[in-house]
């Protein structure tokens, strides 16, 4: 417990987290720091290339781990479990509103790249190791939840609205060839094949300044979250509260499953983070398209303005502490 506090404090001592808080505050007091959209997009691409490339490079050194297959399996189990739990909870909370249940479940079952990256930088900072292939799991866990959630909705849906049917093909295509998945896997592969020579060439750009780029990105994330939190009222207290409980419960599930199959401390923590994190890029777009009657204010505000900040500030050290207790 003492250690948990310490970890939390160490996280608050991280410039990246503090710039997130600064962005949040700036947004609340309506201070006009405007990071242009094109910058946010390229920073996000940069972070994905960086994390993918480094992962691939490290795999090329350490070799494929035996845990790979087990981890892949765990990833799918986490996706199914967390999506279902969230679906059922919301379904009951919102009185059989299966549309919003599916919409929100798609977000919590999927993952957040930036939450993952922040967790990686947290582990790097405190010097805890993790298996490099976990980046692949990040990519793998992006889509299944979205598809599972849509299937759940289809199952509950009697009226069979038109829109849903027409778009389902596009959704599936998106789920497989989504930009972030291609980028993560592509970078992973390139990092794997180009070895030390390649690494030395591009690491001054893609590795050395990584922490600073993440910091700048989190400044913007703070501003986005701050802007969205204003819609909290429209979300209501009930959904606001579960948006804090979902990451905790899902995070615990992730940590338990990962430590159950004997993964190391860092990897277990990251599985907790993946389970706990909720999507705010892939899922919102897919859900808006496939489930237009669901309320975007619900899922965006919950995922982006509540769960994301919670994970970044308190969640990561929490899942870490939990993982270290189970080692």
């Amino acid at each position, binding site marked *: 417990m003492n250690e948990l506090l310490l970890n939390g404090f160490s996280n608050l001592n991280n410039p990246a987290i503090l710039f997130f808080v600064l962005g949040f505050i700036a947004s609340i007091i309506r201070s006009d720091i405007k990071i242009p*959209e094109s910058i946010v997009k390229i920073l996000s691409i940069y972070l994905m290339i960086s994390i993918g490339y480094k992962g691939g490079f490290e795999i090329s050194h350490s070799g494929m781990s035996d845990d790979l297959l087990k981890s892949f399996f765990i990833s799918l189990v986490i996706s199914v479990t967390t999506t279902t739990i969230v679906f059922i909870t919301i379904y009951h909370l919102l009185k059989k509103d299966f549309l919003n249940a599916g919409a929100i479940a798609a977000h919590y079952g999927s993952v957040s790249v930036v939450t993952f990256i922040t967790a990686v930088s947290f582990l790097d900072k405190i010097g805890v190791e993790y298996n490099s292939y976990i980046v692949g799991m990040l990519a793998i866990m992006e889509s299944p939840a979205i598809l599972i959630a849509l299937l759940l909705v289809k199952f509950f849906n009697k009226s069979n609205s038109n*829109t849903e049917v027409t778009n389902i093909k596009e959704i599936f295509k998106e789920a497989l060839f989504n930009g972030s998945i291609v980028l993560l896997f592509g970078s992973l592969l390139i990092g794997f094949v180009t070895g030390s020579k390649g690494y030395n060439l591009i690491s001054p750009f893609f590795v050395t300044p990584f922490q600073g780029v993440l910091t700048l990105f989190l400044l*913007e994330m703070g501003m986005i979250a701050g802007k969205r939190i204003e819609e909290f009222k429209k979300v209501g207290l009930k959904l606001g509260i579960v948006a804090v409980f979902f990451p905790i419960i899902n995070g615990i599930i992730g940590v338990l499953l990962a430590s159950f199959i004997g993964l190391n401390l860092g990897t277990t923590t990251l599985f907790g983070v993946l389970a706990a994190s909720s999507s705010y890029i892939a899922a919102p*777009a897919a859900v*808006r398209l496939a489930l237009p*009657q669901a309320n975007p204010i619900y899922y965006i505000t919950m995922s982006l303005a509540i769960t994301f900040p919670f994970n970044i500030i308190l969640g990561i050290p929490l899942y870490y502490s939990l993982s270290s207790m189970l080692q």
Partner: protein
Amino acid sequence: MKKLEIIIESVELNNMRTIIEKIGVSGYTIVKDVAGMGKHGKSVSTSLVDVGEYHLLIIVDNENIINHVVENLKPLFKNYSGVMFLSDVVKIT
């Protein structure tokens, strides 16, 4: 000739393009990333989240085609946010 101006959620753009191209409009123009206010409140476009972003679509064509387009697009506006305006124009080239 008629000019149809449509404010449309960006997630729906591809879908809408497919529909109007199938109808066979002679052309259209997209003004990207507009902001605004409407029945659903103020548009909140956030740099990372595509939901909440709008585009302005301009279609100029003869009345027949435009009516056809309007009929085919109307259903979309039940679920998605957005508006359509119609006016008279002369197409010169």
